[in-house]
């Protein structure tokens, strides 16, 4: 991966065109937005809508199939697992972990990456070389390998997962933001601000940051799906979220042990992951086409 690949000319859209007029032209991905809204509702108000406590054991009701299968009941709409826990309630509870992880991981990764990219692009020279070399090194360790290593040293938990994921993804932001800053800093208004004696942090936050916000937003939305899959993989391996917290990856790991008894336990949490990622990706694509049409290839 060469630097030229990410040197992208900054957007030159006329400022007069507001959000509203830009939004109007494109067809909104309604279905994706609806699914994503559902997941956010599940993540924030899960207890209120879940029919059961996600950790409530009921051995008498173990391996209950989904309601539409013979032997299923409306009491357990999507069936139960080996301990008689309600799958639907656990999927709802799992939404929270997925949303918390992706929110914090992306904010952290985006914050670190954007700052590193701005500093590298703005100051150039030695600082630039140093930061970009660190980015290269970071990218040369496969993400899961690094996660395993950290999990081997620290005990796995939600916060470790967030740290590991942010450590993996900040490099993306750093590379792309640096490319944008390289051209932004040549603009007249930046030069004028400098001449006028505006302090460097002020230039960063008042003049540069607003110009890379669209890029950050698009990148972040495109990463939601990847982050959710990453968290699920870590939890599946037993190195992410731990019982009694509920995560879709952890549900799949449990279900793997009784794959011969309950097909629903292994398919349904996966469908939750798939629908979340699919809707996040489609929303991300739409945001990119709307706000950043030059980055279609991402």
């Amino acid at each position, binding site marked *: 991966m060469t630097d030229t690949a990410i040197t992208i000319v900054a957007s030159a859209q006329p400022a007069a065109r507001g959000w509203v007029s830009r939004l109007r032209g494109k067809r909104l991905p309604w279905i994706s937005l609806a699914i994503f809204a559902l997941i956010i509702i599940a993540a924030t108000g899960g207890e209120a809508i879940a029919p059961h406590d996600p950790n409530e054991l009921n051995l008498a009701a173990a391996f209950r199939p989904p309601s539409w299968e013979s032997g299923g009941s409306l009491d357990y709409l999507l069936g139960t697992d080996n301990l008689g826990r309600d799958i639907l309630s656990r999927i709802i509870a799992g939404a929270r972990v997925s949303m918390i992880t992706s929110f914090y991981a992306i904010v952290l990764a985006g914050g670190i990456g954007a700052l590193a990219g701005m500093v590298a692009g703005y100051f150039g020279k030695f600082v630039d070389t140093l930061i970009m070399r660190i980015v290269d090194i*970071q990218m*040369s360790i496969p993400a*899961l390998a690094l996660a*395993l290593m950290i999990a081997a*040293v620290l005990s796995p938990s939600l916060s470790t997962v967030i740290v590991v994921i942010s450590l993996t993804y900040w490099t993306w932001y750093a590379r792309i933001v640096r490319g944008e800053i390289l051209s932004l800093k040549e603009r007249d208004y930046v030069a004028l601000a400098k001449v006028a004696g505006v302090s460097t942090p002020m230039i960063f936050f008042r003049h540069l940051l607003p110009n890379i916000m669209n890029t950050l937003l698009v990148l972040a939305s495109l990463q939601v799906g990847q982050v959710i*899959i990453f968290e699920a993989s870590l939890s599946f391996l037993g*190195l992410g979220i731990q019982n009694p917290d509920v995560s879709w990856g952890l549900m799949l790991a449990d279900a793997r042990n009784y794959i011969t008894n309950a097909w629903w336990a292994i398919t349904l949490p996966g469908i939750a992951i*798939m629908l979340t*990622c699919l809707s996040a990706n489609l929303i991300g694509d739409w945001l990119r086409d709307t706000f950043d049409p030059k980055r279609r290839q991402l």
Partner: protein
Amino acid sequence: MWGFIGRRIAHSIISIIGASILIFVVSRLSGDPAALLLPADAPQSALIAMRKTLGLDLPMWRQYLMFAGRAITGDFGQSYSWQMPALMLVLERVPATLQLALSALLFSVLISVPLGILSAVHRGGWIDTFGKSFAMLGQAMPGFWVGLLLILLFSVRLNWLPAFGSGGASHLILPAIALGWYPVAAQMRVVRSAMLDVLESDYIRMGRSIGAPERTLIWKYAFRNAAIPLVTVLGVYFASMLGGAFVIEVIFAWPGLGRTVVDAVFARDFPVVQAGVLFTSILFVVANLLVDLSYGLIDPRIRHHD
């Protein structure tokens, strides 16, 4: 050209050194790295000896140099769950991982290339729509879940293929599909857009106007040129499959590097974790290096001038 190769190799070496520094730093996060490197029931005397070997009373940079020195001579310590040198164990498992990654690559090419070409040729047709939907779905399904679904369908329900272990080709099919699943979507998009570009070019139109058969034009002339961007993407995905086969190897109990490292994490067998992660990074860096160097070989139009 030679200057480019030299620079690229130097970058790779710096990356590997950087990876080793990162691994070193993470290993020191726990407080007592000597305890990490020894079994939990190690006697006090062994602990003291290990602290001395690691040089824990020395400044950090000297500790790192000692670590790097031992790593270069292949001394990562003794694996305490397998009772053999950690590096030996890791090296033993590399061929299985390579075999799996190559099979996954083969699978992904077999699906993505025809689908990509057909999507480009019948642009806007049903196969193009199918390809697009397939790519969208493919990127939203975690490979390990695909693996579980494959086991559910082909091993549990139909009883056609073994669910785990290694042996004949039949053991390779399911893990290869699961590992090759994710790259299919990206590769298909690359083939499709490259084919669209090439099909617009003058020499294809020329060929068409002199009456060359469409089949020959597409497969012989157009695809050869469209294959160049594909090779780049293939290399990148091959590298990431070498470094990302952990979950798939665990699901299918494939005796490769990834599963060994995961097992070692749970056995708290830190020497193996260290050696395995460093080795995975080296494989990853070398694969990426080879991709970059191959540009010039594949496409004579690209030359690296200094």
